[in-house]
């Protein structure tokens, strides 16, 4: 049993996804409970796996007993287990939140929603645990297809178009990634990540152009998947028109898994020497990221719809993560990976809080947020904590990832990026304080609006508390993440 834990991380949500239609046919309300049960068991398994990775190093699992590099291998190293715990925790919190929200927004599609929800979780967990490139592509497509369907499941008119747009762009990205995998397979004859990285230097000396083409296809494909500016055009509409739960889920997790794939492919498959010296793709990425940070923030200021504002803010926050990848030094990469977890908590909390406001009042326009803080104090307090953390107020967690990124850019001698981080913090303050001012210092026209129900409030408060705790106890995770960064570089 215990040696099968790595595969159970993927299998449990996958099996649950198939059980839910059967159970939902009998009793609709049990769909939620079985989803929570399944994610909770994944979370417990991942804690156990964390223990064994910390104690005895990388855990490997051969599917079907076929030895790598011939068979598919699941590899649980520090970075994977970090992502697994993050995905399991955030999706657990969102699953608890989803009860009321799904009952109201998607009352006809409860069974379909939870089936797709579990498939999406299975896909995301599969991406982070697999040690095989083609398997990674398959899980990527599972998670993308379910994301397209989840965005459209609310059946609002605009959601359909947003989802279709995402489908077209996302399929182009997936095709590019598949081509990249094909080029690598062509020159090395291997799909196993560890085996590939051992064979690539020799393959590069024989067929440099093929390896370069593979690299370009990967970088462009993954940039689309993680919505890096200027390939972010699918993101604002998709986040704005999706149901609140789905917005929170894909904003907190989908793009982060894209960032994980980029880290994995750049640093584990190609290797630090290749991406910094052979072709300077990291320095190109860091400049693109710097532009993304500024453009995303400026676009966010211009929005009146609060969900669209948060979506553009995501574009800029993706820039921070990519900047961390692009700096490619120990401190910078630590900041990038730290921002993966911090942004998952902050943006999850913001989208859930906005979802609660939409649930209670139906308002989405920032100008209508007048005095909502007096009516829903706990929800808006959590929103404010997450917003301040996004701005980078110490000791909240958002400050520390920016701090590490700034230190990393100074260490690599690129002062300009530290300036850009500071500038974008001011821009962040611009668009968040505009909302906070309305929320707390306005006369409320909302009569009879109450606090959100407890099943929605508790997850929001958990994530807000997470923003504070991750900030105060930053030294614990930063030393853990620094050891991840050092194994990658």
């Amino acid at each position, binding site marked *: 049993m215990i040696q099968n834990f790595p595969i159970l991380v993927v299998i449990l949500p996958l099996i649950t996804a198939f059980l839910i239609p059967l159970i939902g046919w009998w009793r609709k309300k049990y769909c939620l409970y079985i989803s929570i049960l399944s994610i909770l068991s994944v979370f417990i398994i991942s804690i156990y796996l964390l223990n064994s990775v910390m104690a005895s190093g990388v855990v490997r699992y051969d599917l079907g007993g076929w030895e790598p590099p011939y068979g598919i291998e699941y590899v649980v190293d520090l970075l994977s287990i970090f992502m697994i715990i993050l995905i399991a925790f955030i999706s657990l919190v969102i699953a608890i939140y989803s009860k009321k929200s799904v009952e109201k927004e998607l009352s006809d599609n409860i069974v379909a929603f939870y089936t797709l929800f579990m498939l999406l979780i299975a896909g995301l967990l599969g991406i982070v645990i697999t040690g095989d490139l*083609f398997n990674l592509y*398959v899980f990527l497509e599972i998670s993308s297809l379910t994301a397209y369907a989840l965005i*459209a499941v609310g059946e609002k*008119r*605009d959601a359909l178009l947003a989802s*279709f747009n995402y*489908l*077209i762009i996302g399929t182009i990205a997936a095709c590019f990634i598949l*081509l990249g995998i094909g080029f690598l397979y062509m020159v090395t004859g291997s799909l196993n990540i560890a085996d590939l990285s051992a064979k690539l230097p020799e393959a590069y000396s024989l067929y440099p152009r093929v390896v370069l083409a593979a690299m370009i296809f990967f970088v462009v494909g993954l940039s689309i998947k993680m919505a890096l500016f200027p390939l972010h055009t699918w993101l604002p509409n998709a986040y704005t028109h999706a149901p609140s739960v789905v917005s929170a889920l894909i904003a907190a997790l989908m793009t982060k898994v894209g960032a994980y794939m980029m880290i994995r492919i750049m640093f584990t498959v190609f290797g630090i020497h290749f991406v910094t010296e052979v072709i300077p793709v990291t320095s190109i990425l860091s400049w693109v990221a710097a532009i993304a940070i500024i453009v995303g923030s400026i676009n966010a200021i211009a929005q009146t719809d609060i969900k669209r504002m948060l979506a553009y803010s995501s574009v800029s926050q993706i820039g921070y993560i990519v900047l961390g990848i692009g700096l490619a030094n120990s401190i910078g990469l630590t900041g990038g990976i730290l921002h993966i977890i911090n942004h998952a908590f902050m943006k999850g909390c913001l989208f859930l809080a906005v979802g609660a406001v939409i649930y209670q009042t139906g308002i989405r326009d920032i100008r209508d947020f007048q005095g909502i803080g007096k009516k829903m104090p706990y929800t808006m307090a959590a929103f404010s904590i997450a917003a301040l953390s996004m701005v980078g107020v110490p000791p909240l967690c958002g400050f520390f990832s920016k701090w590490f990124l700034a230190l990393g850019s100074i260490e690599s001698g690129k002062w300009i990026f530290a300036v850009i981080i500071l500038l974008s913090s001011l821009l962040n303050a611009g668009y968040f304080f505009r909302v906070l001012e309305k929320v707390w210092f306005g006369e409320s026209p909302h009569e009879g609006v109450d606090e959100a129900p407890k099943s929605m409030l508790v997850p929001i408060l958990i994530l807000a508390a997470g923003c504070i705790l991750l900030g105060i106890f930053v030294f614990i995770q930063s030393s853990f993440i620094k050891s991840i960064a050092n194994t990658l570089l």
Partner: protein
Amino acid sequence: MPLEWILSKYNYWISAALMLIGFYTMISKKNFIKKIIGMNIFQTAIILFYISISDIENRAAPILVAGKSDYVNPLPHVLMLTAIVVGVSTTAVALSLIMKIYKEYGTIEEDKLLEVR
């Protein structure tokens, strides 16, 4: 000599041409069904590419036959079975989205959609 070199790799040229046709169709056509057709051409071109890299001249198909010891690489074929499944599911999701869009808006032409929205 260059002509011979080009002709000897004709399957790669065809696959690259199909990829570009599919990609162009996906991003330039206004009709959603045409976009999906482009997507399918793109995916099929990738399948052709993978099958091309598995092939080795004068070797048998990877089926156990008496008197044959050299086979082509069977793995890309298996990978492409998975890719075909992925392609079919993507097409299914896309077509059902198009049906919903048609029911809601009464058109699947991109420029007309911008008007009715």
